[in-house]
């Protein structure tokens, strides 16, 4: 018995959400008195791989195969399942990233495992059960799911588990899985990644704008505020429907669900569908000219005022704070 964590890389680097997944998987290994093995697929430097040890991985299986350089759902699932079997891992952990969402269900089927997707805390293993808390109803609630199968797959919601640094480096071991041609039917033509921007699902801070901002030409100040805070941009649905911002920034029940440390909502009314996607944010700040806006009911801090006056003042204040810090 052991725990296996899949450490997805982006251009050869691991993101914070992966360190969270490793820390989380390590805590599960400790709960079960066993060890944690990581598996990395693609071109990742030895240094980067060794660093996974800091978060609790004892050993890293490194799959470096030209055919598996880029993520192909079907092939990666086969590789991870093969590793799980060879390492007698009965619990497989991954991050609930876009790719993770493609992998987890395939792994579940391969390993005949119950899948807890979007876990938000450590499993409760009391009374011989294995219960995981996960998001449900698009962030409006949580469900406690019991995994009753011998094997288990858990995908962790980003920003829901704190990174824990433990031991030193991990031992790297090459792993050469079997690769079936039929698993490589999907061919990647192009990968476009905006490297200069903070990606929304991973962001610690999110600055979000709504219809109250009147038009796309007014996003300059929103972008400036986000840049100053190292934040990702988001928006309400009508804003992306109108084409003011791309769909990839739309948060809410029918958009992306985020759980940053800080969510700043500007000119957004706080409709139930919007709140669904952001309610697990740790701290919520609302800037809206209408003191009756529903968003204030779920906010921690609020400024009632015109965004076109408040935001520039906020930008000034942050600059001053940064200069003095």
């Amino acid at each position: 018995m052991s725990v296996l964590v899949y450490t997805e890389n982006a251009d050869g680097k691991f993101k914070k959400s992966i360190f969270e997944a490793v820390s989380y998987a390590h805590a599960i290994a400790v709960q079960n008195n066993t060890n944690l093995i990581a598996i990395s697929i693609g071109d990742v430097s030895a240094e980067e791989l060794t660093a996974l040890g800091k978060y609790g991985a004892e050993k890293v299986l490194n799959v470096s195969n030209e055919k598996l350089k880029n993520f192909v759902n079907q092939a990666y699932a086969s590789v991870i399942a093969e590793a799980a079997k060879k390492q007698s891992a009965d619990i497989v952990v991954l991050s609930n990233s876009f790719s993770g969402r493609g992998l987890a269900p395939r792994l579940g089927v391969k390993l005949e495992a119950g899948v807890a997707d979007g876990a938000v805390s450590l499993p409760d293993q009391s009374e011989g059960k294995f219960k995981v808390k996960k998001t449900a109803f698009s962030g409006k609630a949580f469900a406690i799911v019991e995994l009753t199968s011998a094997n288990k797959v858990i995908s962790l919601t980003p920003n829901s588990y704190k990174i824990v640094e433990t031991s030193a480096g991990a031992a790297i071991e090459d792993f050469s899985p079997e690769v079936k041609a039929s698993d490589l039917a999907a061919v990647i033509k192009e990968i476009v990644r905006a490297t200069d921007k903070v990606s929304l699902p991973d962001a610690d801070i999110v600055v979000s704008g709504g219809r109250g901002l009147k038009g796309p030409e007014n996003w300059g100040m929103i972008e400036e505020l986000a840049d100053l805070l190292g934040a990702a941009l988001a928006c309400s649905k009508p804003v992306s429907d109108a084409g003011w911002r791309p769909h990839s920034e739309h948060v809410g029940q029918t958009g992306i669900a985020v759980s940053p440390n800080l969510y700043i909502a500007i000119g957004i009314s706080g409709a139930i569908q919007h709140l669904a996607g952001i309610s697990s944010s740790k701290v919520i700040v609302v800037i809206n000219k209408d003191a009756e806006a529903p968003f204030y009911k779920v906010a921690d801090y609020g400024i009632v005022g015109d965004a076109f006056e408040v935001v520039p003042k906020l930008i000034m204040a942050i600059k001053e704070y940064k200069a003095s810090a």
Partner: protein
Amino acid sequence: MKILVCISNVPDTTTKITFTDNNTQFNTNGVQFILNPYDEIALARAIELTDGGNGTVTVINVGEISTEPTIRKALAIGATDAVRINAKPHDAWFVAYQVAQYIKANQFDLVLTGREAIDYNGSKVAGMIGELLDIPSVSIIKKLDISGNQVTVEREIEGGKEILSIPLPIVAGTAEGVAEPKIPNMRGIMSARTKPLTVIEPVEVKTFSEIISYETPASRGQVKLIPADDAAKLVELLHTEARVI
């Protein structure tokens, strides 16, 4: 071209989610059920792809008889026919297993699902069907085009996108961007009543997971309001009190 669209019946997006029986049951009292918004997108794209008699669109739902209004809505929007597998959808695995059995017996070129069902949000059904049939799956796509036997999809990744080319058959989970949802017209609504809706019984399958109970998010305290001309105060509170900057 034969397209299968998996549809789910979910609480309307305005629903306030509450639970009964000591937080073990979702309270459906007064809840309006709708066609899952992402499945509307999948359906709309399927109809576009078969436009002008270029194939058929079958919708499939795993659900009890109460889901039939949602199935009829899909027929009104433009699906050719419908299948209901007569069972409570225990979890994504149960649904995927039933649908995969149906596909094995009936063969489709393309299987579409929504990126996720807005009730239990697993984003799992597409991948599980793909694995059960041993064909490619793409979980969250923003675009889908078909040329001959090749599908080109645009998949969302953190901070970007990826473009893939895959031979049919595949299973794909659709998100915004793939198509605009279609609203049924009068003719559609009329014809929906007579379009075939086949009900089949489920096959038996092991279960691997069970929902034990639910929780609602902890409510936040009273909002702290800061005067509009004192942005510095907000910055200070975010630093010293909330410790998020």
